[in-house]
């Protein structure tokens, strides 16, 4: 919370409306490809999503299923009958002059999301989860010296989830945590890519300042598409409202936009009835019936959500909260962790976590690819850990093997065999080498004997150099000690 508002005894009251594009193949109400990023303008468009006269919508099953997953994961009540409504407002990128949305009977109601942080969980109430269609895109340009808007309908009709929180958040940071927590859930459920730069996740925030029992006027800030924008816009707005109130002014109930460059909110003048959307039931679509049994089935088959997973990693896998946090950030990483662990003998969790957080994240970062694009599999990582554990390879060699595995996907033992990387753990073979090294380094041997064995380091180094790093260091130490022991030298 910012200083000004706190000092004056104002309490920010914040709610979020998050819009998330669903990860379906086709659009919400037609068969057009929903993955429009990079496509030619107006190339993913048909009579339905262009709003041609006479075209009619048909509901995408996957969009409905994904919405039910989210509603269930957010602990919402799913009413047996839900319905689409028309939200009427004229805009060039709304091809029908209305958006098919849900108003009176959304798919999910009255849920919550628990957000974990240092002080324990914060519960954010969810008022509703509903399904709608995205709009087209309008870009501003100049044509023949005149300002024009260019309209592309590729995005028109992409399924969009709207998740509305209770106004129960009281700081910009808590708002950001909630937004991030929600993003994590959506990505975990596999219903949203989480790719904020692509605009697949956007938030409208509303904020008012209350003092005591007196609520303040609500200001809505539209279209924030990064965590930073949410935090900064709220901080700015809270300061602005507090300053206004302290100067004896009044906050106008209005919609404001966020100016990313200037880092300030700007009033978007609009007449009150521009917000009169004249909702009514979409007559082109019968109501939806979702049986309680279906909801129960979805609940049963939901994947484990990040919060539960983190708790499990800390409680039963013995990871630190930090390790659990890092690994659960990406559901693919967490799955790799879980599956690798299941192939390991008990007690291996720390080692698995170390490899994922260390080498794997480093290589992914260097290559700038997601885990799916690498060749690391649970089986592969598990094989590597086995070779490391039974002493077949050294830690240094393991890193080399892991890098090869990352590139090629080959099994660890195959890489070791092919590249001759196996550690020399054969006592006879190694003993011969140690004898040779001792014979060639009389001065070091003398020193070793005189100092009562305290200078074995340089000797081990010589042996390692002679074997190209393939020697088992512990075994080398053992051999040196036994070859230079008083009993041995006495012979």
């Amino acid at each position: 919370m910012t200083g000004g508002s706190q000092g004056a005894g104002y309490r920010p009251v914040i709610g979020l409306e998050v819009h998330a594009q669903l990860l379906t193949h086709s659009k919400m109400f037609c068969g057009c490809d929903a993955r429009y990023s990079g496509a030619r303008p107006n190339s993913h468009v048909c009579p339905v999503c262009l709003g041609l006269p006479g075209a009619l919508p048909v509901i995408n099953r996957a969009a409905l299923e994904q919405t039910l997953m989210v509603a269930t994961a957010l602990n919402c009540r799913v009413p047996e009958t839900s319905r689409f409504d028309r939200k009427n407002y004229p805009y060039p990128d709304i091809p029908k002059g209305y958006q098919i949305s849900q108003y009176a009977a959304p798919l999910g109601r009255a849920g919550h999301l628990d957000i974990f942080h240092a002080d324990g969980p914060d519960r954010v109430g969810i008022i509703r989860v509903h399904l709608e269609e995205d709009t087209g895109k309008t870009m501003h340009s100049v044509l023949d010296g005149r300002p024009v808007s260019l309209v592309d309908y590729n995005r028109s009709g992409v399924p969009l989830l709207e998740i509305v929180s209770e106004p129960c958040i009281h700081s910009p940071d808590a708002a950001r945590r909630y937004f991030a927590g929600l993003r994590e859930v959506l990505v975990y459920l596999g219903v949203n890519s989480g790719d904020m730069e692509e605009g697949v996740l956007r938030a409208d925030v509303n904020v008012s300042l209350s003092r005591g029992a007196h609520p303040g006027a609500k200001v809505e800030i539209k279209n924030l598409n990064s965590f930073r924008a949410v935090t900064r816009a709220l901080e700015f707005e809270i300061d602005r409202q507090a300053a206004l109130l302290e100067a004896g002014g009044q906050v106008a109930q209005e919609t404001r936009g966020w100016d990313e460059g200037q880092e300030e909110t700007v009033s978007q003048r609009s007449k009150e009835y521009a917000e009169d959307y004249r909702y009514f039931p979409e007559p082109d679509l019968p109501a939806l019936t979702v049986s309680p049994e279906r909801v129960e089935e979805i609940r049963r088959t939901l994947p484990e959500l990040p919060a539960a997973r983190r708790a499990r990693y800390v409680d039963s896998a013995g990871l630190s909260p930090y390790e659990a946090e890092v690994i659960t950030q990406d559901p693919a990483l967490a799955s790799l962790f879980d599956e690798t662990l299941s192939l390991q003998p008990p007690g291996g969790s720390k080692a698995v976590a170390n490899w994922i957080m260390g080498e794997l994240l480093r290589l992914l970062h260097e290559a700038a690819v997601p885990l799916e694009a690498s060749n690391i599999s649970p089986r592969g990582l598990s094989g590597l850990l086995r070779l490391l554990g039974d002493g077949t390879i050294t830690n240094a060699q393991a890193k080399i093997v892991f890098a090869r595995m990352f590139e090629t996907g080959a099994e660890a033992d195959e890489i070791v065999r092919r590249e001759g990387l196996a550690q020399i753990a054969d006592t006879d073979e190694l003993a011969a080498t140690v004898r040779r090294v001792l014979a060639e380094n009389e001065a070091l041997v003398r020193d070793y004997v005189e100092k009562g064995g305290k200078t074995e380091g340089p000797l081990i180094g010589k042996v390692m150099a002679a074997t190209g790093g393939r020697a088992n260091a512990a075994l080398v130490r053992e051999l040196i000690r036994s070859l230079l022991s008083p009993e041995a030298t006495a012979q």
Partner: protein
Amino acid sequence: MTEGILHRSFLDLHELMARREISSVDVTRATLERVQRLDPDVGAYLLVTEEQALAQAVEADRAYAEDRANALTGIPFALKDIISTLGIRTTCGSRILENYVPVYQGQVAGRLLESGAVLIGKTNMDEFAMGSSTEHSGFFPTRNPWDRDRVPGGSSGGSAAAVSAGMAAFALGTDTGGSIRQPASLCGVVGLKPTYGRVSRYGLVAFASSLDQIGPIARSVPEVAAVLGVIAGHDPHDSTTLRAEVPDYRAGLTGEVRGLRIGVPKEYFPDTLESGVAAAVSQGLASLESLGAHLVDISLPMTDAALSCYYIVAPSEAMSNLARYDGVRYGLREQAADVWTLFDRTRERGFGAEVKRRILVGAYALSKGYYEAYYVKALEVRALVQRDFEAAFQQVDVIAGPTSPTTAFRLGERLDDPLSMYLADAFTLPANMAGICGVSVPCGLAGGLPVGLQILGPKLGEQTILRVADAYERSAGFNVLVPPLTFGAPA
């Protein structure tokens, strides 16, 4: 070949074509010539697709030669200009779509063209189907072939007039509140409004989506039954279509009505009913009784309320459906320096007074503060209208009465009084509110003008109402009412 053949049943024409006694090219050419001769005085067509028609006729004759013809192959027909046709201008009778050419095929147009029927052209209508006289066409009014000073009814007035004057063997209309049955009644032809969901609306430019239904207009009941068999059926593109199987409607025309209970609602015979209409309808009912049917006095207490309800529901949906005509993607565009002025001017110039009236009424009924009192209330009353019919169909098999309270009225007579125009649909629109089926069949003349007998059936009761209409038509001794065409150049 004489033009006289153009008033024969197309089922006979089909037999003649199958026996190679006439060709589709002959019939098509004769039809086109008749259109050329008569239509300047009637104004049924907005567009005549002569070239395509002749090409299709050639193709139809080939189908007959190769024995792959069906009852509609080679038969000239017309489509109300609200039904989308790929590559053929579809205006909805509106200036705002004056130059709109669909880039996709509507479901029903596609089915007819695939069956080999020959499209003669697109017919005039009240703009966006809003009206009961075809005077609200954005282009010109259509005249009743029985009396050119009178209206053909509407909104499918062009289709009814074209069929009545032998300028098409059959036509499709759309019925939102009576727009097939009322013009069929006023022009002396048979018109069927199917059960809501029986015929796909994909490609039908929406007026009021929960009420609109496409249906056939022809000169006899068996022809209507034949067309319905082709256009009816489930369509995955229209989520409101019914999955019920499509029966052989023609096979159901047994002429048998003995023991059938026909409900006669007292609300359909008010004091204000034109006496000639009352007389003709009563005679029609009497002949059904003489065929062995039982007449049962019933009451449909929600008849008046249905009218009020209709004038909330239909404008509300229309307000939303017509929002897409904004000059951005297709249709008329008025130039302006900013997009909002462009919207305002385009819609100001593109829409006629009746359309504007209904859009504004719809916006009013759905706006904040009025939604509950108007729209929600109307939906509740709509449920009561449905119950009215459900209760009646517990008692009787079909319901019969006048289609329209009057015969064709004079052009201009009701143009300045929207409410009196609305009353023309008082007996037809309850069926749309309830989603049931209804047919209008000619039952004689009053003052030299046709009168229609309306037969209503429960949902998916098409077979029954067609059987009753057909039995009546056979017994009435006139298969076809031919207007005394006192105009047009000599044949």
